[in-house]
C-alpha cells in the first residue's frame, strides 16, 4: 500500500484542538507533524496593552480549564520579584494550597483522557467524578470551579472559610484510598499494561536534549522539579519527594502522575496543618519599576516560565510565557516515528499536551 496522508484534524474525538498530519504506510506511521495554532489568542500581545492588574484574568486563560492556579503563580512571582514585594506568610500557604489542589485535579483529568484513549470509559467516569470533589473544595475556597483569579499581586483575594480545613482533610483521606482503587483498576489492569507499556519510550538523554519538562521528564528517570530545584513560595518548608519512573514509556508517565497526586496530598496535609495566622494580602499599587525577571513555577504539566520586562509604567513592556506543553510538543514528532497507528493516541495523550497551553 502506498503512503497515505492522514489528517487527524481539530474536530476529532481524540485530538482536542490539535491537528496532526500523519504519513501512514499500512498500519505504520512514518512521520507525524503537528499543526498548532487553532486556539491562538495572542495573549502576549494582549498583555502588553493592559495593566498588570488587568492582566490577571488574561494570563489565567493560558491554561484555564486544567491548571489555572499553577499558571498564575509565575506571573505574580515575576511582578513581585521586580517590585521587591514581600507576600505575607498566610497568603503563601493559601497560594500553595490552591496550586496543589489544582495539581491533583489536573492529574485526574489527564488520567481520564488517558483512559478514553485506551477505551476504558469506566476510569473516565471515576476520575472525573473524583475531580468534582476537588473542584468543589476549590469553589469553597475561591468561589469558582475552574478559573479562579484567586491569587493576586501581593497575596490572595479571599481567606479560608470556616470548616474548610476539616472538609479538605476528609476529602484528601478519601482520595488517598481511591488512588489504590485506581492502581488496581487502571494501572494494574492487564490489558491496559499491554497497551501502554513499552509505548513511546523517551530516553532521558533525549528528554533533556529536547527540553522536556514535567511528569514526562520525571517518567524518564530525571529527577528535576522546580519545587525542589528552586523552591518558591513556601515549598522549602514541606516534606515531600519527587517520584520518578524507570523506563520512560507511556505507562510510567501515567504512574508518575498518580504518585504525584499522592505527594500533593502529603503537601496539602502539611500546609493545612501549619498555616499561620496573619494578613492575606499586602495591597500596593502595582507600579513596577524598571527591571526584568525570569521566574519558573511547577505547574501540573511541568515548568512554566515567565519572562517579564517592565519599563516603569503600569503596563508590562514584554511578557513572554513559556508553557510546559509548548516545550513538550517537540516530543511528539520525535516519538511518533515508525510506530503502529494504534499507538498514536496513547503517546499523544500520555504527553498531556493542552492545546491552549501550546497556542496561548
Amino acid at each position, binding site marked *: 500500500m502506498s503512503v*497515505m496522508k*492522514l489528517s*487527524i484534524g481539530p474536530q*476529532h*474525538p*481524540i485530538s482536542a484542538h490539535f491537528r496532526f498530519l500523519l504519513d501512514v504506510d499500512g*498500519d505504520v506511521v512514518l512521520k507525524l507533524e503537528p499543526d498548532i495554532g487553532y486556539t491562538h489568542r495572542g495573549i502576549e500581545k494582549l498583555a502588553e496593552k493592559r495593566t498588570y492588574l488587568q492582566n490577571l484574568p488574561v494570563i489565567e486563560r493560558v491554561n484555564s480549564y486544567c491548571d489555572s492556579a499553577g499558571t498564575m503563580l509565575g506571573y505574580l512571582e515575576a511582578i513581585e520579584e521586580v517590585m521587591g514585594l514581600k507576600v505575607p506568610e498566610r497568603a503563601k500557604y493559601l497560594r500553595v494550597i490552591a496550586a496543589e489542589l489544582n495539581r491533583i485535579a489536573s492529574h485526574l483529568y489527564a488520567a481520564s483522557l488517558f*483512559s*478514553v*484513549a*485506551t*477505551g*476504558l*470509559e*469506566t476510569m*473516565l*467516569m*471515576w476520575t472525573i*467524578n473524583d475531580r468534582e470533589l476537588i473542584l468543589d473544595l476549590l469553589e469553597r475556597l475561591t468561589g469558582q470551579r475552574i478559573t479562579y483569579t484567586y491569587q493576586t499581586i501581593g497575596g490572595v483575594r479571599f481567606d479560608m472559610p470556616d470548616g474548610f480545613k476539616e472538609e479538605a482533610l476528609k476529602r484528601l483521606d478519601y482520595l488517598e484510598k481511591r488512588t489504590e482503587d485506581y492502581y488496581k483498576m487502571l494501572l494494574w*489492569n492487564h*490489558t*491496559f499494561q*499491554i*497497551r501502554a507499556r513499552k509505548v513511546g519510550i523517551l530516553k532521558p538523554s533525549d528528554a533533556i536534549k529536547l527540553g522536556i519538562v514535567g511528569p514526562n521528564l520525571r517518567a524518564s528517570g530525571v529527577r528535576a522539579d522546580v519545587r525542589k530545584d528552586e523552591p518558591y513560595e513556601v515549598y522549602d518548608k514541606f516534606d515531600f519527594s519527587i517520584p520518578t519512573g524507570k523506563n520512560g514509556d507511556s505507562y510510567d508517565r501515567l504512574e508518575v502522575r498518580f504518585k504525584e497526586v499522592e505527594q500533593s496530598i502529603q503537601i496539602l496535609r502539611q500546609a493545612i496543618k501549619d498555616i499561620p495566622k496573619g494578613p492575606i494580602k499586602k495591597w500596593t499599587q502595582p507600579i513596577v519599576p524598571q527591571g526584568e525577571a525570569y521566574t519558573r513555577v511547577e505547574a501540573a504539566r511541568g515548568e512554566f516560565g515567565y519572562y517579564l520586562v517592565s519599563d516603569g509604567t503600569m503596563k508590562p513592556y514584554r511578557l513572554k510565557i513559556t508553557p510546559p506543553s509548548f516545550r513538550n510538543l517537540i516530543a511528539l514528532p520525535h516519538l511518533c516515528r515508525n510506530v*503502529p*497507528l*494504534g*499507538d*498514536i*493516541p496513547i503517546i499523544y495523550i500520555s504527553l498531556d499536551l493542552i492545546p491552549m497551553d501550546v497556542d496561548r
Partner: protein
Amino acid sequence: MILGLSFPQLIELILKVLIFPGLAFPLLFAMIVIWFERKFLARIMLRIGPLHVGPINRTGLFQPIADFLKLIQKEIIVPDNANKFLYNIAPIIAALVASLSVAFIPYALKPDGSYWVIYYTPLSLLVILAIFTARPFIMVAAGWASNSKYCTIGAIRAALQLLAYEVPIALSLASIVIMSGTFDLAKIVEAQSSIWFIIFQPIGFIVILIAMMAELSRRPFDIPFAEQEVVFGWPTEYTGAQFALIMVSEYFDLCAVTSLITVLFLGGWSGPAIPLLNDISPILSGIFWFLLKMAILTVIIIMGRGIYPRLRIDQLLDAGWSVLIPLAITQIIITLLTAQWWLPLVGGV
C-alpha cells in the same frame, strides 16, 4: 391446506416467524439488552444511566425505543462519491444476515417430539457457521462504499479481525461435533440430556466465548467499531435509519450468538420443569431455561465493556492466532483422547 401444512401447523409457523424466535424476539431482545447494557455499564461507571423515558419512574425502560424513533426520523445522508447501491443496501443486509441465524436454532422441545424451530435442517450448525462467515463482507462493502479514508481503514481492520477469529470458532465447534456426532443443533441438545457439554469442554467454552466477543466486535475487541483514531470505523458515514439498523444488527448478532452457545455448551432448553409455566404449555419451561442461559451469557459478554480497555489491532490478531487456536486444538485433542470416559454419558448418540 396451504403450503402443504394443516391449519394448526400454519398457526404455529406464523407464531414462530413473527413472534418467537422470529421477528419480534430479536427486536425485543435488542431493546432489552440495549437498556440493560446502558444501565449496567452506568452502574459500573458510578453513573445512573437512562432515567426518565418509560413507565416505571426512574428506570428509563423505553429509552432504546425513544432513541430508535429519533434515529429513524433523521435525514439519510449519502456521501457524494459513495457507491450508492452498496452504501444503501449494506445496513439492510447486515440486519438480515444477523437475524437469519436465529431461524435455524431450536429453542424448545415440543411434546410430540419435534422441535420449536423455524426451519429444521439436520445441518443447522454448518448453515450457521456459513452465515457467520458472511459478516466481514458486509463490513468491507459498507466501509469501501462510503468513500472515506477512515471507513476504509476501519473496514479493513474489521475484516482482519473477524477472519482471524473465525478459525477458533470453527475449531471449537469441531470438538462439539466430535463429541455429539452430528451437525444437527437439536440432536446436540439431546446429547446433553445427562451432562452439559461445558463440563466436558471447559476450554472450548472459554475459547468460543472469547472468539465470539471478537466476532461481535465487543470490547476488548471493538477496534472496528469505536476506534479513537479513525472516528468510528466502518459505519462512520451512516446516519438516521441506516445507523439505527447497523446498531440494532449488532444486537441481533448477540442474540444469535448467545443462543448458539447456549445450545452447544449449556444444554439448550434442558432444565427442571417449572410447574406454573408447564400448565400453560409444556414448551414454556424449556423456553424459560433457554432465555435464562442466554441472559447469563449476555451479562458476561457485556461486562467486558466496562472493565477492559481496547486492544491494538496487532495485539488482537496475535491473541487470536497464537493463543486461541492452540487452545482450541488442545480441546479437540483432549476430546479425542478421553473418548472412552464421556461416550457413555452423552445421550442420544
